[in-house]
């Protein structure tokens, strides 16, 4: 198997600075989206530090080593952001979602509410679970998933790089099948674009057109936040 990818980002229609950063490295099988926290200054610096650190990695021999290297780099950025925050007397943070491909499997690490989806067999699945206040409400049965989108706490995340000295990244793995399409996205997408809209785009469009389509849908619907997408397709040799 091999893979191809495409990515796109837009500042949106409300924010003046794009605090999202994208890493698109099919040559080493690593993709990431980092979303600098909107309420925190220097979020763009935090997200760029993450994607730059991951972009300096070399392709390791196996998936478990790739996971170790990726986590090590993210934790190192976390330490630097904590130090920087002390120096500047401000919190500097970012969400992160990564997709790591090696051989016939992939792993994904994440913190915060940037997401990873997989489109397989005409069905879209969200592979990550948001580290957010509303997700906790949903898990506790206090809020329906339908109501979560409109909840006043829907911008509160419970885990982020730079937020605390002890950062715990979530992690999972899955197999790869030719034809699988993965979507990494910042929360600027899912504020405006439903899973059925995402599935429709992934079903009908080639990767570059699909990326533009998802960004355009977000813009048509107000684009209240920065929006970033990274699409990865697994192709049979």
């Amino acid at each position, binding site marked *: 198997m091999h893979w191809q990818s495409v990515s796109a980002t837009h500042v949106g229609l409300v924010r003046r600075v794009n605090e999202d950063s994208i890493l698109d490295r099919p040559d080493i099988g690593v993709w990431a989206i980092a979303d600098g926290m909107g309420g925190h200054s220097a979020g763009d610096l935090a997200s760029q530090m993450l994607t730059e650190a991951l972009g300096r990695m070399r392709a390791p021999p*196996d*998936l*478990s080593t790739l*996971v*170790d290297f990726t986590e090590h780099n993210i934790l190192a950025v976390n330490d630097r952001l904590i130090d920087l925050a002390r120096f500047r007397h401000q919190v500097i943070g970012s969400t992160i979602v990564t997709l790591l491909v*090696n*051989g*016939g*499997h992939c*792993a994904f690490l994440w913190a915060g509410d940037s997401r990873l989806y997989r489109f397989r067999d005409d069905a879209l699945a969200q592979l990550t679970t948001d580290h957010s206040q509303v997700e906790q409400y949903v898990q506790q049965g206090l809020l329906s998933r339908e109501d979560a989108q409109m909840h006043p706490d829907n911008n509160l995340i419970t885990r982020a790089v730079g937020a605390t000295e002890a950062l*715990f*990244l*979530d*992690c*999972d*793995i*899955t*197999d790869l099948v030719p034809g699988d399409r993965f979507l990494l996205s910042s929360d600027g997408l899912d504020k405006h674009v439903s899973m059925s809209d995402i599935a429709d785009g992934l079903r009908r469009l080639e990767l570059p057109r699909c990326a533009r389509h998802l960004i355009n849908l977000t813009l048509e619907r107000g684009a209240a936040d920065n929006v970033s997408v990274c699409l990865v397709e697994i192709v049979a040799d």
Partner: protein
Amino acid sequence: MSKSLVRALAQAYAEQRIDRRTYIRERRRLIDEAVAGIESRPPRVLEPAAPTLSPTDVTVELPRAARGESP
């Protein structure tokens, strides 16, 4: 199978039920076994706790009548 084990292990680490060294070692094992197509044994921390007797528990043989059996 291994997919959910890796996630459960990460959650156990986030909840500080295992230390970092154990987490890294067990995560590597689960990923390597999944890639090799081996059915993984759950990490011990994820196994359900064995039933235990408290120090005050005792075993009592009830009289047959009390169990509703005929003598």
